[in-house]
């Protein structure tokens, strides 16, 4: 006994619509036209359900380049086809199972991407950084410097972003140069430094690739001795020597690449990427800061400055400003740092880095406004 029922057939060669009788034989399904011609004869195991609206079973031939389609609206007939054919999947159970597999693998892929971002990218950036030629780093520094300047320079007071260029500030600039010259000579870096004092109220300092060091006005104001200021700058010179700026750029580029291009802007916005960058960079800054501290202590000792001044200064800024400025937020717990600095700093005799007059001039390097 063969079950049969009405169906609609499209042969895939033309768009003509054929009303057919669908016959379910032992191992094949036949679509027979009104005049008895067999239009299609498909084995049950090569049937394939294709997307269709609710209430219509639409069948194709799996793997066939021709889009021949058989549509069955009769429920009983559709059930009978479903019973006979393994690949026909009207409830969508097979599809659901595959979907779950996809979801599980996507979750694994996500975890692996996050893992690469947290552990892989910093490692790769660390390995790549020494390979970046200094000429490239300098060019990179110029680009980033221009951008940083544009973001930091608010022009709120109408005065120049850089301190030390007006007649009143000239002597301060000379004193700053005198201090920097000692540090730079002792450091002996393969690349010239570009230190600047900039009109920013926070007690902070920033190092960019290419040897750019921004010392914020707030830091100069809060420093009580040349050694304190020199200590922070020596720490920043450590970042230059270790090429931390370049490494940060490489890390940021790597993370942008992972989360930006690979995952796509699925909610339309770089905010996610930006936040991810912040978190990840906070995560790996502890070792970097400790290394820069060690370098700072070494450099201060080399120029016979007071290496402990950095620790004192950090404690004082941490005590007075709350919530702490950026230098403290992404720096390891201040007390731990100071303990380490105290331990590393020897008790070699020190000499003043600047005389009283020079220090007074340096303190007023941003006095034009």
């Amino acid at each position, binding site marked *: 006994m063969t079950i049969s029922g009405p169906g609609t057939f499209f042969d895939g*060669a*033309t768009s*003509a619509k054929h009303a057919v009788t669908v016959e379910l034989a032992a191992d094949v399904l036949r679509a027979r036209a009104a005049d008895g*011609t067999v239009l299609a004869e498909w084995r049950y195991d090569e049937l394939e359900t294709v997307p269709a609206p609710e209430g219509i079973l639409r069948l194709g031939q799996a793997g066939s380049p021709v889009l021949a*389609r058989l549509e069955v609206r009769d429920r009983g007939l559709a059930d009978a086809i479903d019973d006979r054919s393994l690949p026909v999947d009207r409830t969508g159970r097979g599809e659901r199972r595959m979907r779950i597999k996809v979801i599980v693998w996507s979750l694994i892929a996500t975890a692996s991407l996050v893992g690469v971002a947290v552990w892989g990218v910093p490692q790769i950036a660390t390995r790549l950084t020494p390979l970046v030629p200094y000429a490239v780093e300098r060019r990179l520094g110029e680009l980033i410097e221009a951008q940083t300047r544009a973001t930091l320079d608010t022009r709120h007071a109408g005065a120049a972003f850089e301190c030390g260029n007006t007649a009143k500030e000239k002597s301060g600039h000379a004193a700053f140069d005198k201090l920097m010259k000692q540090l730079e000579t002792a450091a002996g870096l393969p690349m010239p430094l570009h230190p600047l004092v900039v009109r920013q109220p926070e007690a902070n300092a920033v190092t960019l690739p290419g040897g750019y060091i921004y010392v914020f006005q707030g830091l100069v104001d809060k420093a009580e001795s040349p050694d304190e200021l020199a200590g922070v700058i020596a720490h920043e010179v450590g970042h230059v020597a270790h090429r931390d700026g370049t490494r940060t750029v490489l890390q940021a580029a790597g993370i942008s690449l992972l989360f930006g291009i690979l*995952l*796509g802007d699925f909610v339309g916005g770089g905010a996610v990427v930006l936040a991810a960058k912040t978190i990840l960079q906070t995560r790996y800054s502890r070792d970097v800061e400790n290394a820069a501290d060690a370098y700072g202590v070494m450099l201060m000792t080399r120029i016979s400055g007071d290496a402990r001044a950095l620790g004192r200064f950090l404690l004082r800024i941490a005590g007075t400003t709350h919530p702490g400025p950026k230098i403290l*937020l992404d720096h390891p717990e201040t007390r731990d740092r100071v303990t380490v600095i105290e331990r590393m700093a020897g008790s070699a005799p020190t000499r003043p880095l600047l005389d009283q007059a020079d220090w007074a001039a340096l303190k007023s390097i941003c006095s034009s406004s």
Partner: protein
Amino acid sequence: MTTFDATVPAAQIGAVAPAEGGVRFRGEPRPFWRLLAHGAVLLMLTLGIYRFWLTTDVRRFLWSNTEVAGESFEYTGTARELLLGFLIAVAILLPLYAAFFLVALGLGKLSSLLALLVLTVLGHYAVYRARRYRLTRTAFRGVRFHQSGSAWRYAVCALLWWMLVLSTLGLVYPFAQSRLERFKMRNTFFGDLQGRFEGSGFHLLLRGLVLWLLTVVPFAAGLIATLRAIDWTTLTDPPGGDDLSSWLEASGLAGALVYAGLTGIWLLLAFVVLYPIFQAIVLRWWTSGLRFGEIVVTSRLRMTQVLGVYARFLLYAFLFSVAAAAIVVPGAILLPQLSGELDSMPKEIVTTLAGLAAYVAIALGYSTIYQATVKLGLWRCVVESLDISNLAVLEQVSAAGQPASPVGEGLADALSVGGI
């Protein structure tokens, strides 16, 4: 396994004449909402990887619920193809981005202009190739659509037209649209039936001219008023410390800010009200220009329908905003207190992560509401407003064309220039 396709002269046997003009959309909003909400959760968990599956589901839903003469469309594309296309696109774009980076080191500011130009051309190229993929994955009555024509040629034409549109503040837009649509439709085939586009740019211009005047004239007037209010000689002379307010007065900057603000408010209001109207005009004009051989499409789309769609979106978005605020605001107050005992660093990470999750959830919420109201709503009212004549032609269309590669879709996805 035998198929008799080749041996049977198709048109003779049991041919059923299609009903004239019947276009229907049978999709219910409820399953579509379910699909999108489910997809949004998975998108969040998989950091977006699920989008290939969600896109495929959405297309299957829209395609198979759209009926012409009692037969529904079929979307034959798969998520796997989209994923593959995307991976290929990444392989193409990675070296390109690396090259941009290196060029930026050498050229400075000039390189961003170059990058913009290259990415714009590539974006249009991707749009055209993605259209080809979608067409070749669209089947109707067992015959697929396909697209010919060079995507590079299209990309260059599109770039030139868009430069003209920008430099005329949008006045040329109707002509650009009609030219580009002509190019696309001339290269679009349903089987061996060639498409074409008969919408006239001039007609679109006439219909949209009032909108253009309502936005561009106040914009230009505001710009001129702003610029004239400023006393340029005073402005270039920067003020000393405290006399900021008097300097603002003297330089006319205060007046200029007022003019600029008023212009901005007007443009924002105009955008909210006029954009749906603009959308309605363009959609009706576009669908009424579509032709396939002797098949002629006309549209009865009414402006109120489109306005209703956007009003629903605004309503749902407003309700969602209230709900989101009710959750996020107390959370933002409580969280710092809860994590108070942690060290400063984990605390920062915890709050940033929570903020990130909230941001993603809210953005996905808006995008889900947009898709379920605007995308589905526009699709429904555009489809149901169509009249199609000479459908008898559908009895004689022969299959032609091959499935195209999904690389275009991948590029469009990676460059964020996708469509549906």
